[in-house]
């Protein structure tokens, strides 16, 4: 009996330790050390070469994670602003809901504010991030890969092999990131068009139901309306 007890205690300790080590290792890998955010946008890379190098030095996988995080955050933020905007009265007349007047590719950075949720501004801002991302990826190609599995960084052949795989992955990633961005912009555009209409429809339905209730009330009154006015008269025509 005593032996079983010790075995169980040993197994429990082993499981707890193994789980803790695994979780620690995963946290270390995902963001604790390598993939810390720079609190900078990829859009700024276009005007800041140092930032581009800083991003590139983080390695392909971390850059990829940061880029997609930023894109996801951008659309989340825009959707949040859009949903809040839709709660306001006459939201469709708000400047932030509409495309800024006379906006074009030269002045969109000035005219498209953070609060603007027009598809044009959102797509241009996403495009800025994407362009910065591709520039960083180009820069990444100039570095030796640092994410070699199994700690084989010191083996030259392994390094070049991984470098070739990484560069191929980067080429595919450029195309994939563009497809995802375009599809997301399309979905955002649909949502931006459909959801306000839905809100308007909801308001119409609400008003119609109210209207229906009023008419129903009138009908209740009409039921009691006399068919004939027997022995009824007035001193005047009223």
């Amino acid at each position, binding site marked *: 009996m005593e032996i079983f007890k010790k075995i169980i205690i*040993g197994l429990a300790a082993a499981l707890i*330790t*193994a789980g803790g080590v695994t979780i620690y*290792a995963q946290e270390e890998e995902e963001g604790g050390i390598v993939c810390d955010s720079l609190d900078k946008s990829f859009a700024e890379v276009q005007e800041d070469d140092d930032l581009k190098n800083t991003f590139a030095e983080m390695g392909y996988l971390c850059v990829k994670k940061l880029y997609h995080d930023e894109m*996801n955050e951008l659309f989340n933020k825009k959707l949040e602003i859009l949903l809040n905007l839709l709660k306001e009265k006459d939201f469709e007349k708000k400047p932030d809901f509409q495309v800024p007047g006379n906006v074009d590719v030269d002045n969109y950075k000035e005219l498209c504010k953070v609060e603007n949720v027009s598809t044009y501004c959102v797509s241009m801002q996403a495009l800025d991030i994407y362009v910065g991302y591709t520039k960083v990826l180009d820069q990444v190609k100039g570095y030796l890969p640092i994410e070699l599995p199994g700690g084989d960084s010191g083996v030259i052949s392994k390094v070049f092999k991984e470098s070739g795989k990484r560069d191929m992955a980067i080429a595919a990633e450029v195309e994939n990131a563009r497809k*995802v961005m375009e599809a*997301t912009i399309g979905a955002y555009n649909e949502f931006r068009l459909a959801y306000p209409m839905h809100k308007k429809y909801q308001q119409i339905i609400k008003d119609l*139901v109210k209207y229906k209730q009023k008419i129903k009330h009138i009908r209740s009154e009409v039921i009691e309306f006399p068919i004939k006015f027997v022995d009824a*008269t007035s001193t005047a025509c*009223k």
Partner: protein
Amino acid sequence: MKKLMPITIGILAGTVMGLTMVSHAEENTVTNIWDDIVSYGNLFEWQDVFGAVGLSEDKQGKDLYKLIYNKLLVRPDDDSFKAVAQNYGLTKQEAEDVANGSISTIYHSSHMKGSSLKAGKMTQAEAIALSDQLINDLNDYRELFTLQQEVDAATAQSELFSNGDVADSGFDLVYDLSVIEQVLFLSNTEISVGATFENQLDSPVPKNSNPPQYESPDGAGTPDGVTFSEEGGETTAKISLGGDKSLTAPVLDGDVCTSEDNLLEALGEYESTLPPTPPAGDDDDEGEATDTQLSQSDVPAATADSWGSVFCPEFNDPKERDANPPVESLGLGFSQEGDAEEGETSFTVSLPLCLTIELIKDKASSYTAGSDQCVKCEVDQINKLFEKTLMHSLVPNKVTGNYLEGAKCKETFDVPLIDIKVLPIPAPILTPPKDDLIFGNNIFEEWNKFVGRLGWKDLLAEDEYIEEFELRNLPSGISNIEALVDIQGEKARNRVEALDEMADIQTALTGGQNNIYSQALLPEMRQMTVYFERFKKVFEETAVVCKSIVSKPTIQ
């Protein structure tokens, strides 16, 4: 120290296990943090982002980018690995290993499908060939699933919010329009006035009491100790009272009391239980006996002050009843049956039932205007209901008027010093002139009738008589033949002249009549025009009145 040994060993073993697991993961996967985050998330379909149950309005569209990334890049890869793994009898992880160049997985796999080669017995070349085949299949699947997800991502987003399904997006424009249509035009519930009461009280009588269902309250079927039998079309229930005792009672078709003359029945029962009456003529004794019976009643009379309270007569203790049978009064009590066999005691029971009558007052309406009625239905009903009202004039008809004269809304004024209200009629109507003798009759027809009535017709029509008269008065020197020819010629001329004159007269008369008729008709037409204008004015004023009626306060 010995107690810490298991823990120490466990920690060491756990550390080794954990490091091994981490190392294995690093070796066998191309670390792709973002893909892992997305693929291990819960964003698999559109409804996860837009229409998830419990998703608040503020969270609509959250992580839309992740969803699309997952659809376009992660899902195709994932699905293709799953498909290939299934085809080759591998786990997904093993398929990924093979795709990453690990031949050993194939070589050592004990459950490879699609191959006659047995695990552990295949050569390296065979394993490589199998690996190449798996990778080719994987690429085909990947291309297929990528195309599938691209099509989905390209088309679904445009149809997502207008496909009539709210489950995939949380809202849908087509659905909204259908709701609007329903509110406006559709009716789910038939409007019924005079139909079954919408909120009527539940009747205690079962709606389908034929055949009667005798179910116990707990649904266990017929209550224990109760048996039913039918005789002569009447159902009776026999209720076991324990032992050999039972109670038999008729079962009513409905849960309602039959209309019976309880007083007459009670008196009849009372008389049947009376002891043999003394010989006739001894009325006084009979009266005393009745008084005696009544005085033995165990039913206390209700006190004078408690008539409004519940009246429930109390009986004596059962032991006391058994000790003093029979006790009878107004059908309440016990009595021994005369046909009981010897040695047995049977009895009939008239049980007193104290019924509590609760009067429930509730508002019931046969007008079933539910909340799901549509606007058009309501308007139609209003029009239908108003039809009856509008068929009658709403204007008071107390004031009499002339023919074709609006007898409505006449202004009166008082004559000073005399209690008379004077009602001016602004435009008395011209009644049609009494010229029916002229209008509508032909004067010649009337003349013929006149002549016919006087008997002149025959006289004038006799041509032979005229000829004879002329011949008798011929001048001398003229033969009869010549005279006859002259007469015929004269007659013909006269006839033609007469017809011409008559035609002229008829034409003149007709024209004159039309003229006269027109002259009489024109004023009337003008008058009618004036009336129609006044009618129009009245209608306009009625519209104003109707508006003012709406604004009048109502008495609740």
